[in-house]
């Protein structure tokens, strides 16, 4: 269960010395490379994370490291993983590139060549783009959260968990079914390509499929302090649905919607820190607000078929040590870690090429929320992204609740032409 900000703050500061937080974050990298006490006869396999741990993109890196450490710890306490006749302890090695392309390359090389990791997990976007030439030449298994990084020349790059932003279609589908009278929508997102434009194209396609007209799309820069003018200009179009295809700015945008008296529906990709949103608006205002990222103490995650062990326990463990730092990636990187473990077991080896082949050989690879399918050739020339089901989350009475799981795969099978059309309209790369 997530705590109030005050409890969060006191929990963190009560436990640690004043500097502890930073040192813990910095030290996570160091701690991650301390060898674990191992049972005699077991080996250690190192898995790398080349992620932003400081700077503006830190929320999409560091929480993932924390999540992986929890899962790795659990696996190791159970005696490690049995791969091909040996028992392996798992060790996470992280490198902070701060979303700087030069550092991303240096980090990747250090992880691959010096730490000799068997896989590198990354966030996605230009940092992945810069490491790909080296990564593919070395045949290093690399994971990303953005399938748009995948090209026919990247056989060892996979997107096994999040396939941003394809899953957003489920929220639109669900919202449209529940609100058949909604006719128009506006979209707000950032003006970069890998997150903003990709998301806008996906939402455009999703709305078109439901017969909803997108009357305005606003691409804003990363330097916006005050969203009042932008929200005003979007609301002037009198939309029935307000769509936030953005990550960092959801709180101030929803706050503006509240202040400007918006009465329609809201759908978003993420809504990190929704308690803050409620504090700034009201419980009534956010009732029914739809987005895509569940709290992990949601009982719906305990249904059979979910490929994540004990989500509730994970949520508790995370909030015990890292309260207030949960973000959408906190469970995604661990999910990829678990995928790796499964594939390594199937391959009987930890070597990147063997594990990749094992992953691809499975025609129904495990996805976090159920069985998945390899997909992507129609858009990017290579099917290295796993798509399956994805939860539609809505706020009910101040708490995020999964409404249902919808199939991203089915949507893509039917409508990938519509998506392609919208991607091309925004000059996004497609085959």
């Amino acid at each position, binding site marked *: 269960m997530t705590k109030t900000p005050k409890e969060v703050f006191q929990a963190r500061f009560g436990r640690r010395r004043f500097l502890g937080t*930073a*040192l813990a*974050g*910095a030290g996570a*990298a*160091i701690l991650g490379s301390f060898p674990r006490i191992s049972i005699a006869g077991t080996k250690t396999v190192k898995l790398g994370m080349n992620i932003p*741990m*400081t700077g503006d993109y830190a929320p999409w890196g560091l929480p993932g490291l924390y999540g992986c450490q929890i899962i790795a710890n659990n696996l190791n306490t159970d005696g490690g993983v049995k791969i091909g006749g040996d028992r392996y302890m798992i060790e996470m090695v992280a490198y*902070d590139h701060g*979303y*700087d*392309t*030069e550092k991303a*390359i*240096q*980090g990747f*090389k*250090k992880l691959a*060549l*010096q730490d000799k990791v068997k896989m590198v997990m990354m966030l996605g*976007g*230009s940092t992945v*783009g*810069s490491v790909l*030439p*080296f990564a593919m*030449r070395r045949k290093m298994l690399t994971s990303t959260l953005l399938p748009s990084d995948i090209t026919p020349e990247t056989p060892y790059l996979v997107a096994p968990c999040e396939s941003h932003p394809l899953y957003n279609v489920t929220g639109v589908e669900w919202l449209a079914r529940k609100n058949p009278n909604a006719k128009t929508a506006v979209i707000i997102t950032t*003006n*970069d*390509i*890998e997150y903003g*434009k990709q998301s806008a194209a996906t939402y455009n396609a999703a709305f078109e499929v439901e017969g909803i007209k997108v009357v305005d799309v606003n691409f804003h*820069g*990363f330097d916006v302090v005050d969203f009042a003018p932008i929200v005003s200009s979007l609301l002037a179009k009198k939309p029935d649905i307000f769509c936030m295809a953005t990550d960092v700015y959801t709180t101030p945008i929803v706050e503006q919607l509240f202040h400007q008296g918006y009465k329609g529906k809201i759908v978003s990709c993420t809504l990190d820190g929704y308690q803050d949103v409620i504090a700034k608006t009201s419980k009534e205002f956010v009732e029914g607000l739809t987005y895509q990222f569940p709290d992990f103490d949601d009982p719906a995650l305990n249904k059979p078929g979910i490929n994540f062990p004990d989500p509730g326990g994970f949520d508790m463990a995370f909030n015990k040590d890292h309260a207030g730092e949960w973000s959408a990636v906190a469970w995604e990187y661990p999910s990829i870690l678990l995928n790796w473990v499964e594939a390594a077991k199937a391959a009987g080896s930890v070597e990147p090429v063997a594990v990749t082949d094992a992953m691809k050989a499975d025609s129904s690879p495990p996805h976090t929320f159920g069985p998945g399918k390899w997909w992507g050739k129609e858009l990017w020339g290579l099917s290295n992204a796993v798509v399956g089901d994805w939860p539609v989350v809505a706020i009910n009475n101040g708490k995020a609740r999964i409404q249902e799981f919808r199939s991203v795969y089915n949507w893509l099978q039917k409508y990938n032409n519509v998506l392609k059309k919208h991607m091309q309209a925004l*000059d996004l790369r497609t085959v």
Partner: protein
Amino acid sequence: MISPRIISIVVLLVGLVILPHFLKFHHQDFLIFLGINILVVVSYRLMTLTGEWSLIHIVMMGVGAYTSALLSKSLGVSFWISMPMAGISAGFVAALLCFPLFRMTQFYFLIGSFAVGEAIRLAWIYFVKPFGGSSGINNVPPPEFWGLDFMEPIIYFYLVLTIVTICLFILYRIENSRIGLTLHAVHWQAPLAESVGVDTWRYRSLAFIIASLFVGIAGALKVHYLGIVTPHQFGVGTMVFVLIWVILGGYNTFWGPILGAVVLSVLDESFRTFEALRPAIYGALLIAGIMFLPKGFESIAPKVRAWWRSSRASPSP
């Protein structure tokens, strides 16, 4: 009789040729970026000779990088042509900007150069065709020469070493030529220089154009190694680092900025384990540096020499 200075330079170069073989891969990368940054600071110093400090230098590096990227990726031009073109285009843009920018001096020039630079950077973000927006341009091809693999750090390092050494040599010669002396005069004795017919505006512009030309080449070197260019690489943050290297290294000698870049980059890398705290340590170093070594690291050398001389002169008991 070869001067000791030439001998020490040759020794240094030989050392640099051997060095990467003893280093790990990501340290080899570090050397490459350090070499490129040395070209950046030395070219910047040429501008500061006229007493003008700009905040647009790093954007000119970006102009060079984007030019080389576009030429080689979209038009298939070979690196050996696109690299000098990068320098030329940066110099050309600088020439155009001379007209508005050099109507201001000193503080206003600083701010004005920042504004223009930032506007150019925003243009790269806004105009997705052809600049690729905030994701920039990727898949920029590496150089080709005799089948050498320029994606190997050691090979690329030798490329950088060669080109940067040549550029530094040229810059050194410029500084010690008549042009260089005139630049000094424009800085220290502007009214006097004008009274003998020196057009200070022309010389300031010349310094700016030459500096931009060389930093444009540095930009090409960078983009063909990384394979990617984004607007974020050329923002105020990076420019601030250039300023820091030059000021802390000292800008009274040719070697000062190089010293600054090397020392500070090495220090920055060695604090990697303190990742989250690193900027604070860096900030503290800056303050310590400017308070205790106001004339820069280069001022240590004369002090050491003086101490050495005085300790040798004193009679032994």
